[in-house]
């Protein structure tokens, strides 16, 4: 690393401009970030990189590299937010290798060439891995946030009538969602003082033993709170699977459609819908 340092200190701006031009020429790059941004990021990073190399430590976990890594983290996040491809972000670091190699080859022809090349490779590769892990970390954060949002959004409880709630379930009902659905429904029963709750499963693609178990639990819990519960939107296919799987839905009142469940609810409340006779 000493050797590299000597070479670098001799021609910092040369290596830097070489690196920037390499980044610019890279074919995979669509460069959706402004040119001057690339230059300033590269310059800043390169300064820190040189300083870290000057410390003589090759391990990037060493405190001497902290500043460099912080900078690199910012670059990775900046690029991730602007929708750059993983390869483009990796190229930012990996193209530095080529620039450094060229300096080594041009000026540093010595018996230790292979050794020097190797230490540069190791160091830059580590930085490359670091930048990728940050990039993926950020992506995963986004995915996690979206999952949570989806969970919230996909379980609305609607008040159909005074004391009648409907809960349309859309998508597969797994354990974590079933929990959210149950909590949402029970809280809504308290909030709206509901007498009847309709769980509509029209949007559930398939019912397996687990889903049925979750539905049964939700219905039982709602009944413990003093509300009557109907399952509506059972499609013929789902009815077939339920029977073929030998699932026991004994505790549940099922209805073919939301409409018939709603009609049943009105009946229970002693209400009916009548046609208004305008002619009379």
């Amino acid at each position, binding site marked *: 690393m000493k050797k590299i340092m000597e070479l670098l200190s001799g021609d910092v701006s040369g290596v830097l401009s070489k690196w920037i031009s390499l980044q610019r020429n890279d074919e995979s790059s669509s460069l959706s970030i402004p040119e001057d941004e690339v230059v300033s990021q590269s310059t800043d990073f390169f300064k820190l990189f040189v300083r870290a190399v000057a410390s003589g430590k090759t391990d990037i976990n060493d405190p001497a590299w902290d500043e460099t890594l912080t900078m690199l983290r910012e670059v990775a996040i900046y690029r991730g937010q602007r929708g750059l491809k993983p390869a483009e972000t990796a190229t930012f670091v990996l193209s530095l290798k080529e620039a450094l190699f060229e300096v080594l080859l041009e000026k540093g022809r010595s018996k230790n060439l292979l050794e020097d090349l190797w230490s540069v490779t190791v160091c830059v590769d580590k930085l490359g891995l670091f930048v990728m892990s940050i990039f993926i970390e950020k992506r995963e954060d986004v995915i996690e946030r979206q999952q949570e949002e989806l969970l919230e959004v996909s379980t609305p409880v609607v008040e159909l009538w005074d004391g009648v709630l409907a809960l349309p379930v859309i998508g597969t009902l797994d354990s974590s969602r079933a929990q959210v659905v149950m909590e949402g429904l029970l809280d809504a029963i308290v909030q709206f003082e509901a007498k009847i709750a309709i769980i509509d499963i029209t949007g559930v693609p398939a019912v397996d033993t687990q889903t049925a178990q979750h539905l049964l639990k939700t219905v039982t819990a709602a009944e413990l709170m*003093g509300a009557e519960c109907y399952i509506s939107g059972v499609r013929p296919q789902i009815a077939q699977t339920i029977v073929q799987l030998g699932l026991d839905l004994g505790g549940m009142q099922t209805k073919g459609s939301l409409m018939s469940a709603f009609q049943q609810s009105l009946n229970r409340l002693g209400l009916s819908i009548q046609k208004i006779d305008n002619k009379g």
Partner: protein
Amino acid sequence: MQNNIPILKLGDFLLVTIQMDVHDRTALQLQDDLTNEISKRRSKGVLIDISNLEVVDSFMGRVLSDIASMAKVLDAETVVVGMRPAVAMTLVELGLSLPSVVTALNLERGMELLTQRLGRKGNG
């Protein structure tokens, strides 16, 4: 004997409000007191308000369902009112669906339900 749960008379009904988490022995004492009270006052209905309970364990669940069955034998209807969502979820997870217990959302609904049920019984 300080910790007994009070039983209030409310017309034809008895009202039991469980204010705090109860010990197993207090729960059994309640079972004893309540059956005595029902036969003494010839009550037609019992309302058990558990809206202050944050935890209902399997024992309490069983006591509630036992009380309901005992009251039934003494010709009184029991309605458990005010169960919290968290309690309902716990009971379901424990596999206790309290099939013999009639439940209502709050005291008002419970009264309504009892009146309705007793009226139907009286007419039939």
